[in-house]
C-alpha cells in the first residue's frame, strides 16, 4: 500500500513539473499559434540560472524568482525580435525556435560543463513528512501544492480577468481585437514571456529532485510534446491532466518496465491519436 | 430521378441553429439559385452538401444515392463538384497546371500508383483546349497568384467545371468582382452544359434572376420560399426579408 502511495506521489509531483512546462507550451500555442521548440531551453536555462543564483545568494526564493524572470526576459527578446515578424508562418517559426534550442543547448554546455549538477533543497522543505505510516519528502509535497496554486492562478488569469478576456478576444479574432484598441502585439510578447517563465519555473523547482544536466532540454521538450498531444494543445486543463497522466505513466513505467521506458508513454500517445487526435481537451 | 435531394438537413454550432430542417429537391439539368440574407445558412448548406462538414441531422442524396456519410473526395468522384466562396487555387502553380490537376483527377489518376509515363500529352492538349475555350490561353504559364482577382475567380469556377461534374455547386461566383468583370463570368455560367445540374449561391439579384430556373430562399436557417423567378420576385415575404435588412 505504502509503495503505491509513494509511487503515485512521485508520479504526481513529476507530473506537476511537466504541467508547468506544458502549460507554457500550450499557452504560447493557444494564443499565438507558435509551436515553441525553444521551450526545452527555457526549462534547462531556468535550472542553471536558478543554480547560479542559489549558489550566489543562498536564497531559494531568489533563485526561483530570479531565474524565472531572467528566462522570461530572454523569451520576450526572442519573441520580439525573431518571432514577431513570422506571425502565423509555421516553417520560419520552427526554424527560429529550433535554432535557439541548439544554440542554448551548446552555450549551457560551454558555461556549465557536461556533468550533471545537483541543486540542494530549500531548508524549509528539506525534510520528510510523516503520514499514513510512512515518510515522504516534504519538497515533493511542496511541488504538488505549488503547482496546483500556479494552475489555479493561470485559470483565474484566463477566465477571470480583463487581460484574459483580451487574450481570448485576440485568439478568436485578431483583426477585430486590434480594431477594438487591444495592443495585440504587446499581449503576445507578454504571453510568450509568461510561457518562458513557467518553463523556467519548472526547471528551477525541478532542480532539487531531477538535477540540472545537459540534455534535459531535449528530454523535457519531448515529454512536453507528449503531454500536449495527450491533453490537447492550447488547453490549460489538458496540460494539467496530460501532465499528471504522463508523470504517473512515466514513473510507474520506470518502476515496472525499466527497459521499455518510452513505451509507457508511446502507448497512450498512440491510443489518443487513434481515438481523439486533437487530444483530450484540444480544439479540433 | 432527382439530381440532388436535401432531406431534413439541420446543423447547429454550439447552440446556434445554422440550418433547421431544410428540404428540397433539384431536378437534373436544373439551375437552382439559393438566395437569402447574410447568415441565412447558405454557405453552411453548401459545406454540408460538399462534405466539408457533417450535418447534425438529415440526409443528402445524389441521383438517389445516399452520400450523407461520404468524405468530400468521394462525393467529387461521384460527380459532385464545387467552387469556393474565398477563391481556392493552387497559387504557386501555373494556370495550366491548375487545370491539369483538375483533369488528372477526373481521369482516375487519383489513385496514388506511380505511373511509368510522364505527364500525358493528351491531358495537356485538353487543358490547352479548355483555356482556349475560356479565353485564358495567354495566362497559361502565369502563376495563379500573379493573375488578377477576376481571372482567379474565373479559374476557380473553371477548375470545378473541368472535371465535367454531374452536379455543380457554385458558391457566390461573382463575389468581389467589379461590374466590368461580371459579364465574363456570366458568359461562362451560361455556357455550362445543360445536362449539368447547377446549384448556385448568389447575392447579386440580377444575376440570380437571370440564370435561375428555380429559386430556393433561405432565412435564418429555414427554407422560406421556393419557386420560379416570377413567384419569388413577387413573393412579399422575400421582399420583406431583403428590404427589412436594407
Amino acid at each position: 500500500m505504502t509503495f503505491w502511495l509513494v509511487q503515485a506521489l512521485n508520479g504526481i509531483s513529476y507530473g506537476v513539473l511537466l504541467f508547468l512546462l506544458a502549460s507554457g507550451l500550450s499557452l504560447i500555442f493557444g494564443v499565438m499559434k507558435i509551436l515553441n521548440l525553444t521551450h526545452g531551453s527555457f526549462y534547462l536555462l531556468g535550472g542553471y540560472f536558478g543554480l547560479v543564483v542559489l549558489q550566489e545568494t543562498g536564497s531559494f526564493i531568489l533563485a526561483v524568482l530570479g531565474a524565472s524572470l531572467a528566462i522570461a526576459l530572454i523569451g520576450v527578446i526572442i519573441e520580439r525580435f525573431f518571432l514577431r515578424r513570422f506571425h502565423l508562418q509555421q516553417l520560419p517559426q520552427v526554424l527560429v525556435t529550433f535554432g535557439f534550442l541548439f544554440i542554448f543547448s551548446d552555450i549551457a554546455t560551454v558555461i556549465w560543463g557536461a556533468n550533471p549538477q545537483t541543486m540542494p533543497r530549500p531548508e524549509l522543505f528539506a525534510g520528510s513528512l510523516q503520514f499514513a505510516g510512512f515518510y515522504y519528502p516534504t519538497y515533493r509535497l511542496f511541488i504538488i501544492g505549488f503547482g496546483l496554486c500556479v494552475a489555479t492562478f493561470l485559470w483565474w488569469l484566463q477566465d477571470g480577468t480583463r487581460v484574459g478576456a483580451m487574450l481570448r478576444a485576440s485568439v478568436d479574432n485578431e483583426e477585430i481585437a486590434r480594431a477594438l484598441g487591444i495592443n495585440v502585439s504587446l499581449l503576445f510578447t507578454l504571453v510568450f514571456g509568461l510561457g518562458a517563465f513557467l518553463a523556467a519555473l519548472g526547471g528551477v523547482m525541478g532542480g532539487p529532485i531531477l538535477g540540472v544536466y545537459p540534455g534535459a532540454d531535449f528530454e523535457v521538450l519531448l515529454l512536453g510534446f507528449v503531454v500536449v498531444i495527450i491533453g490537447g494543445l492550447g488547453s490549460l486543463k489538458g496540460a494539467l491532466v496530460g501532465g499528471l497522466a504522463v508523470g504517473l505513466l512515466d514513473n510507474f513505467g520506470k518502476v515496472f518496465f525499466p527497459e521499455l521506458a518510452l513505451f509507457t508513454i508511446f502507448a497512450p500517445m498512440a491510443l489518443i491519436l487513434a481515438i481523439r487526435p486533437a487530444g483530450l481537451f484540444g480544439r479540433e | 430521378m432527382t439530381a440532388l435531394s436535401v432531406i431534413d438537413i439541420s446543423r447547429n454550432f454550439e447552440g446556434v441553429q445554422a440550418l433547421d430542417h431544410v428540404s428540397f429537391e433539384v431536378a437534373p439539368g436544373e439551375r437552382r439559385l439559393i438566395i437569402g440574407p447574410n447568415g441565412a445558412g447558405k454557405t453552411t448548406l453548401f459545406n454540408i452538401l460538399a462534405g466539408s462538414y457533417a450535418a447534425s441531422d438529415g440526409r443528402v442524396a445524389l441521383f438517389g444515392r445516399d452520400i450523407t456519410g461520404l468524405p468530400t473526395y468521394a462525393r467529387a468522384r461521384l460527380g459532385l463538384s464545387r467552387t469556393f466562396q474565398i477563391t481556392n487555387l493552387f497559387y504557386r502553380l501555373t494556370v495550366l497546371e491548375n487545370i491539369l490537376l483538375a483533369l488528372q483527377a477526373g481521369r482516375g489518376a487519383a489513385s496514388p500508383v506511380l505511373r511509368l509515363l510522364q505527364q500525358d500529352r493528351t491531358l495537356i492538349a485538353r487543358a490547352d483546349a479548355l483555356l482556349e475555350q475560356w479565353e485564358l490561353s495567354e495566362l497559361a504559364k502565369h502563376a495563379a497568384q500573379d493573375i488578377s482577382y477576376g481571372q482567379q475567380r474565373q479559374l476557380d469556377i473553371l477548375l470545378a467545371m473541368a472535371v465535367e461534374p454531374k452536379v455543380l455547386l457554385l458558391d457566390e461566383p461573382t463575389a468581389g468582382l467589379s461590374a466590368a468583370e461580371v459579364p465574363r463570368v456570366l458568359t461562362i455560367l451560361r455556357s455550362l452544359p445543360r445536362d449539368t445540374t447547377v446549384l448556385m449561391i448568389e447575392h447579386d439579384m440580377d444575376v440570380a434572376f437571370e440564370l435561375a430556373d428555380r429559386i430556393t430562399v433561405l432565412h435564418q436557417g429555414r427554407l422560406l420560399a421556393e419557386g420560379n423567378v416570377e413567384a419569388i420576385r413577387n413573393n412579399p415575404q422575400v421582399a420583406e426579408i431583403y428590404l427589412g435588412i436594407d
Partner: protein
Amino acid sequence: MSAAGASSSVKSRGSAALLLTILVLAVLPYLLSTYYLGLVIEILIFALFAMSLDLLIGYTGMASLGYAAYFGVAAYAVGLLAMKLHWSVWLALPAALIIVGLVATLFGLLALRTRGSYFLMITLALSQVAWGIAFGWRSLTGGDDGLPNIPRPELAADWPLAGDRSFYFFILLLVGVGVLLLAHVVTSPFGFALRGIRESETRMQALGYNVWRYKLAAFIVAAVFAGLAGALYAYYNRFVSPDYLGVFRSAEVLLMVILGGAGTLIGPAIGAAVIVLLENVISAYTERWLIVIGTIYILVALFAPDGIVGFVRDFHARRAKS
C-alpha cells in the same frame, strides 16, 4: 512573371550541368585521396537523404521533425542482418528497405491522424521512441555503444568491395539510382498531385483526390529513400549508433533541405554538400557545432527562407528585370 516552366535554354543548361556532374563524380576516385573521397561519399549519401525529405516538405508540404528515424532504422536493419544473420548486401539491403517501409507505414498511420503543429510534435515523438529502443535495447542494438564492425558489402563470393574505389562506385551507383527514382516520382502525376496537396488540400479534396492516401504514400516513399541513405551510411561507416536516429540527425537533414531550398530536389543536394563540408571544416577548429547549426537555422529563417536555390533564382529574376 511566371513561377514555373523553365525556358528551353535553362533546361539545356541544366542537362549540361547534370552531365558534367556525373562525369566529375565518376572521375573523382582517381583524383582524390581516401579522406576526401570519404567526404564525397558522405555528401552523396546525405544528398539522397535530404532529397527524400524534400519530397515530404518541399513537394507535399508536410514539415516533419523526426525524419532521421527512417535513416536510422534502415541502418540498424542492415547492420543487424549483416552481422547477426550474415546476410549479403543483396538480401540485407532490400530487407532493410522493406522494414523501413513497414515502420513508416505504422508511424504514418498514426501521425497522419493530425496535421500542422500536432504533426510536427508527433513525428518527433515517434522518432524518439525509435531512438529509445535503439538506446535501451542493449542486447539487440548494443545500446549506446552501437553496432561496430559491419562488413563492407560483398557483391559476390569473390567480389568484396573492400577497396575504396569499388565501394565508392557502389555508393555512387545506388545513390544515382535513388536520385533518379526520386526525380521520377517528383515529375510523375503522383508527384504533381503532391504539389497540389501542398498548395491546397481542400481544393484537391474537392477535385476528387483522396488526399490522406497520397500523404501516406508520400510519407512511406520518402522514408524508404531515407532508409536507403541510412543503409548506405551504415555500410560506409561500418558502424551504427543511436545517433543515426537522434534529434540532431533530424535537425541536420531538415536544415540541409531548407538551406538548399525546399521543393527543388537539387536544392537539398546542395544543402547537404554545404553542411557536410562545413561540419568538416568547423569541427577541425571547435566542438561548438551545435551553435553553428542553430545559428544557420536562424540566419536562413531571417534572410534566405527559400534557401540557396531560391536566393539564386531571385537574384536572376531581379537581374532579368533590370
